[in-house]
């Protein structure tokens, strides 16, 4: 059997798992097409995130554990582009916030300039510190009243700046741009550090981005969440009230409620598939191009690549920005799918480390591997819970119904998913370190 055959079969197998979820309710499958499509949609998004991480890790060997932050920035982009602007918010606080941002940027720039220009010494440190302190107070003096003014505008329903009111699809590239901008800033400071320092740095930045989203109510409404984001697909209720659609659903033997939910989810799946295919094509082209070869050369031996005249830090920055942009796009898509931005739900285990499991299990350095890993691991992430429930039911079937141990095990079965993910990661790293679809 050729490799291509084997790898196609793997894709078929994962596809079959998702299909079975809809077809049968045997064992841990639910037999609901709805749940099958939910898994498919998040699987598509996970595959895109895994592509982004694979670009950084598989192509360039950059150890980025701040994926959660870029995903969240993508989510913020949806709020900032697609929601309607809050009436009066811009005139109330917009100029103040902008001025504060400009002053903040000026402070940092002038501090950096002083470091560049002045000779090293205690005088320089003093000047830099005083610039930063004075700048911080000017920033706060401009910033605090402006955000207060914004947050006072009908705090129960908005209290934030709102967005531009553009179509929500446009927020996906904007999410990518936002994440790319953040990645550029981070890369400028943190790239060039040793691999595990970069890991800690990105881990920290992701936490900071989440902290900002949770606390800056004027921007993202913080933990009050932004709900009812516009959608690129029709609403179920509208479809159910449209006789033409109801008739169309009936011709498949579907009642209007089920028909409309499946229709909407299929719409999302179609949009996401288009994005995934485009990005996958681009990643494949990049991998095969001279640029991709150069990246792998840098990954395999930085010193040699540098000796050949390749600018390692610049190339690293480039690919760090690109990979993070893909994560930002995926994050924006996810927030669009959810229809809400809930900063409180971002958790590094789910949004950073799980993506890493996908990339490693799928096969780092191989784009198709990452896509496969994305679908497979996402399926398991959802399905390990019912699986472990089944397993525990089976294992404890000899215990009495009201045994304390049994109820405890049943209650906590859901937490087996983290354990299982760790186990899968360790098994793959041990027995098949190159993943399911290895790099060629």
């Amino acid at each position: 059997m050729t490799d291509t055959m084997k790898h196609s079969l793997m894709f078929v197998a994962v596809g079959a798992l998702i299909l079975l979820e809809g077809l049968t309710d045997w064992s841990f499958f639910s037999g609901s097409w709805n749940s099958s499509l939910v898994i498919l949609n998040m699987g598509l998004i996970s595959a895109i995130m895994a592509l982004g991480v694979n670009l950084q890790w598989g192509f360039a060997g950059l150890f980025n554990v701040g994926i959660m932050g870029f995903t969240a920035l993508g989510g913020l982009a949806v709020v900032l582009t697609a929601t309607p602007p809050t009436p009066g918010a811009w005139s109330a606080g917009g100029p103040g916030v902008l001025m504060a941002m400009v002053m903040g940027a000026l402070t940092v720039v002038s501090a950096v300039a002083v470091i560049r220009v002045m000779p090293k010494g205690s005088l320089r440190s003093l000047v830099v510190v005083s610039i930063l302190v004075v700048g911080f107070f000017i920033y706060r003096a401009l910033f605090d009243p402006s955000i207060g003014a914004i947050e006072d505008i009908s705090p129960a329903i908005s209290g934030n700046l709102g967005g531009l009111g553009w179509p929500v699809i446009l927020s996906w590239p904007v999410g990518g741009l936002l994440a790319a901008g953040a990645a550029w800033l981070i890369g400028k400071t943190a790239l060039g550090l040793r691999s595990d320092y970069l890991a800690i740095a990105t881990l920290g930045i992701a936490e900071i981005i989440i902290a900002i989203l949770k606390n800056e109510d004027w921007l993202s409404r913080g933990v009050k969440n932004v709900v009812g984001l516009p959608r690129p697909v029709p609403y179920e209720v509208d479809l159910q009230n449209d006789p033409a659609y109801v008739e169309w659903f009936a011709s498949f033997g579907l009642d209007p409620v089920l028909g409309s939910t499946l229709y909407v989810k299929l719409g999302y799946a179609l949009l996401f598939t288009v994005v995934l295919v485009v990005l996958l094509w681009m990643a494949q082209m990049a991998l095969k191009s001279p640029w991709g070869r150069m990246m792998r050369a840098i990954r395999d031996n930085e010193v040699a690549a540098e000796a050949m005249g390749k600018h390692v830090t610049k190339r690293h920055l480039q690919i760090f920005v690109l990979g993070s942009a893909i994560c930002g796009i995926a994050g924006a898509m996810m927030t669009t799918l959810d229809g809400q931005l809930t900063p409180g739900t971002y958790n590094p285990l789910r949004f950073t480390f799980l993506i890493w499991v996908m990339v490693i299990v799928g096969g780092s350095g191989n784009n198709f591997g990452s896509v496969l890993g994305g679908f497979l691991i996402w399926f398991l992430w959802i399905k390990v819970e019912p699986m472990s429930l089944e397993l525990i039911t089976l294992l404890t079937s000899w215990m009495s119904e009201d045994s304390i141990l049994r109820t405890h095990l049943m209650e906590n079965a859901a937490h087996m998913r983290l354990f299982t993910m760790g186990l899968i990661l360790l098994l793959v790293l041990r027995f098949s370190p190159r993943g399911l679809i290895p790099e060629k």
Partner: protein
Amino acid sequence: MDFLNALVALTNFVMIPAVAYGSQLALGALGVTLIYSILRFSNFAHGDTMAFGTMMTILVTWLLQSWGVSFGPLPTALLALPFGILATMALVLVTDRTVYRFYRDQKAKPVVFVMVSLGVMFMMNGLVRFIIGPGDQRFADGERFIIKARAFKEMTGLREGLAIKTTQGITVVTAVVVVALLFWFLNRTRTGKSMRAYSDNEDLALLSGINPERVVMYTWLIVATLATIAGVLYGLDKSFKPFTYFQLLLPIFAAAIVGGLGSPQGAIAGGFIIAFSEVTITYAWKKVIRYIMPDNLDPDGLVQLLSTDYKFAVSFAILIIVLLFKPTGLFKGKSV
């Protein structure tokens, strides 16, 4: 103008919490730094090792409490601590045998070890949540305060109270004892010296007949002890929640890196630097400033530089500054 009240307020709200938190971070960072200097990788599972040790201690504490055993004014958890340490030692040794040793024999790159530690982190995290659940657990019992705020006010006649929690006292005392023992062990005993030799130069240590597996085993045993103690102290002081312990990873790593990865003295200094900066930058200074400033200059706002939710940002900013200007940390650590 009232310096005495300002000083008391400062001690009560900034100094004491920061010293306690700093001791906990220092113990955590010591574990990270030891793993780094002997096994040469950043252990992402450290937060979850702490969580596991704390969980085992809590379970034994509950058992002791159900038997009616108590430790007088001190928390029962201190009696349970040795059992927690033993359980954690068993866990890390099993992990080392089944997981890490394979990669050590292969002489895998550090980044592979980090990946592997991610897997271990997931498994330990899942295990802890599976056994004790994801919720908040408070397990401190016994006397709550060494000095109560009201008693202090009555004693001194000052307007500001000073409260020292028992857990804060225990934290500092335990940390001092543990650090003293650790340094005695590293500097005076044969095993400790062999560990330092192995950390300085692996090949030379091997040539002089040091058994690497023994060194690694002792390292894990010490790390398990440090992690459990740090975790239990943090849990007694605040509360135990698996996710919080996972998140402690960031300040702990910041402390270890700021001090210089691989340097035990650095880990302690780093722990206190991170703790003090987090507390001072996120503290609302109004209360202290009110006493030193003349009445008419009373500040309007809370005089809080950043809201408490940005404490990660503080540890992180310090981390970045140190990495940019002194990449090996304040105390010369290793830079592999």
